[in-house]
């Protein structure tokens, strides 16, 4: 018995050393600043990166090393620095030969962030289905939430904690009619009332088919996306941009990134690789171009896309070496799980 106790103590000490020693070393060492903020400028046809020097002074530098002043950067990125240009009275009448107003810029600007931590977690599989065409202007939370089971949709009335049989059957039938195979593999939506409009949820069914599911005047609305058989989608992200330019993003088994258009088509983007479970993605876009920043374990990958058809205009990669000592750890910034891993 004493041997067993000694073994347990030895195991605990080993775990503590492998866990705490690298942690202390990494904590004491100064972390490298990995990500550089960069945006693609259509006017300069180049990425402009913000870099801080040793004296904490900000420099705006192109890929060829050319340095831009603050005012020049504002003019080269008129959609991003629109408010500053308007305040200075320098906002142009047209961009790329197209007449544009600050209001239009505000409407068409896009800001999307996807963090692996948002999908790697024990998220609650209950979803409020808002009324997408409310009588009043403001959106309202419904009095029920739904879950998707292997048999269909179940709406649960929150006040009584009971399943609404009639509504559940009606919505289940609507999904079945469109060919939805239960259960769902993936559900994405933004059940918030603090937004301009609601487009319900994007759902992948058991056969990886993509559906749009929402509630219109109390009735179910279901539409399928035209996904070619050769594409097997694994992740879908519902996004509700101000100008309704697109419905969201999707990723397939080959880690290719697609934009979901308002007419239920998939458009392949020029982004090389995006793995939602491990990579961080940020898209800062406007009416003319999108800058897609993907941070993975090896570096930061910037892709400039044409906002009209999402083809690749230009690419920039900055690699970094991970200088931290690997060891046992229980949590990760990429997920919300707690378990031992190396």
């Amino acid at each position, binding site marked *: *018995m*004493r041997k*067993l*106790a*000694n073994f*347990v*103590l030895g195991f*605990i*000490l080993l775990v*503590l050393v492998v866990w*705490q020693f690298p942690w202390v070393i990494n904590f004491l060492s100064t972390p490298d600043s990995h990500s550089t903020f960069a945006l693609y400028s259509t006017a300069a046809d180049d990425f402009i990166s913000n870099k801080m020097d040793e004296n904490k002074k900000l420099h705006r530098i192109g890929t060829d090393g050319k340095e831009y002043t603050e005012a020049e950067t504002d003019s080269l990125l008129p959609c991003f620095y629109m408010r500053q240009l308007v305040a200075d009275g320098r906002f142009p009448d047209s961009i790329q030969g197209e007449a544009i107003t600050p209001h239009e810029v505000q409407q068409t600007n896009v800001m999307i962030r996807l963090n692996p931590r948002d999908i790697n*977690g*024990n998220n*609650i*599989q*209950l*979803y*409020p289905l808002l009324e997408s065409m409310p009588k009043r202007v403001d959106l309202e*939370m419904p*009095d029920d*939430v739904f*879950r998707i089971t292997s048999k269909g949709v179940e709406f*649960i009335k*929150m*006040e009584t*904690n009971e399943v609404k049989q009639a509504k559940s059957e009606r919505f289940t039938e609507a999904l079945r009619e469109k060919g939805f195979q239960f259960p769902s593999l993936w559900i994405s939506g933004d*059940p*918030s009332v603090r937004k301009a409009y609601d487009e319900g949820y994007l759902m992948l069914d058991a056969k990886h088919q993509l559906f749009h599911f929402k509630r219109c005047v109390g009735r179910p609305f279901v539409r399928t996306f035209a996904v070619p058989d050769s594409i097997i989608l694994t992740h879908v992200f519902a996004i509700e941009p101000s100008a309704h330019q697109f419905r969201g993003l999707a990723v397939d088994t080959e880690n290719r990134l697609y934009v979901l258009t308002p007419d239920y088509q998939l458009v392949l983007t020029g982004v090389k690789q995006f793995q939602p479970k491990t990579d961080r993605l940020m898209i800062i876009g406007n009416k003319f171009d999108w800058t897609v920043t993907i941070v993975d374990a090896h570096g930061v990958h910037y892709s400039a896309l044409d906002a009209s058809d999402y083809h690749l205009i230009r690419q920039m990669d900055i690699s970094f070496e991970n200088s931290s000592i690997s060891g046992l750890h*229980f*949590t990760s910034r990429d997920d*919300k*799980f*707690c*378990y*031992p891993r190396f």
Partner: protein
Amino acid sequence: MYYKEWIKTRWYLLLMFLITSGFAGYSLLRLHRVAALNGIDHAWIVMLTHDVVFVDLLKFVPLVAGLLLALVQFVPEMYHKCLKLTLHLPVSHLTVITQMLGFGVVAFITCSILNFLLLWSYMHHVLAFELWSRCLLTALPWYLGGLAAYLLGAWTILEPAWGRRVFNLLVSLLVMKIYFISDAPASYNSFLPALSVFTLALLTLSWISVARFKEGKE
């Protein structure tokens, strides 16, 4: 042996049950207050959209309860030299300490089960399975942490030498960190089976302390 432990700890066990149940009850009261003020719909929505679990008040309660149980059960043994007498019984000293710890473990687990039953009895009426199970699974590592605090506390208190006692205390503090390292609700779910086995394995550490005590280490 079990009767002796019962006589020694019964008032504390009653107090532990009342206080932990009080905190569990207060957590339910918070949920009930939200439901009374804004409707139970609001409680569901904040749980869904803001990851609220309503049981976060319980986080360190089992830890303190487990630690106090170890103090109540084993400090008198050491202070009044009772352990020396106990170890002279015609039974293996490791069997004796295992029985003493077994009593404490069963008492703590019983108290935890009663706390969980109290939480479940109200929550399952007003919340969907996905919500109440998330609350209980969030609290489970904290209760395992309480059990670990009891076993590590016993290991440290039963240690006869002060220098080694400090070492035990440092190791215990680091081990306890495992149970509180993540704040995300239900984040321990996949780790719970292994963590439970690990927690129960901590019982064996007291065998080292008692063996050293028996050897006359000081």
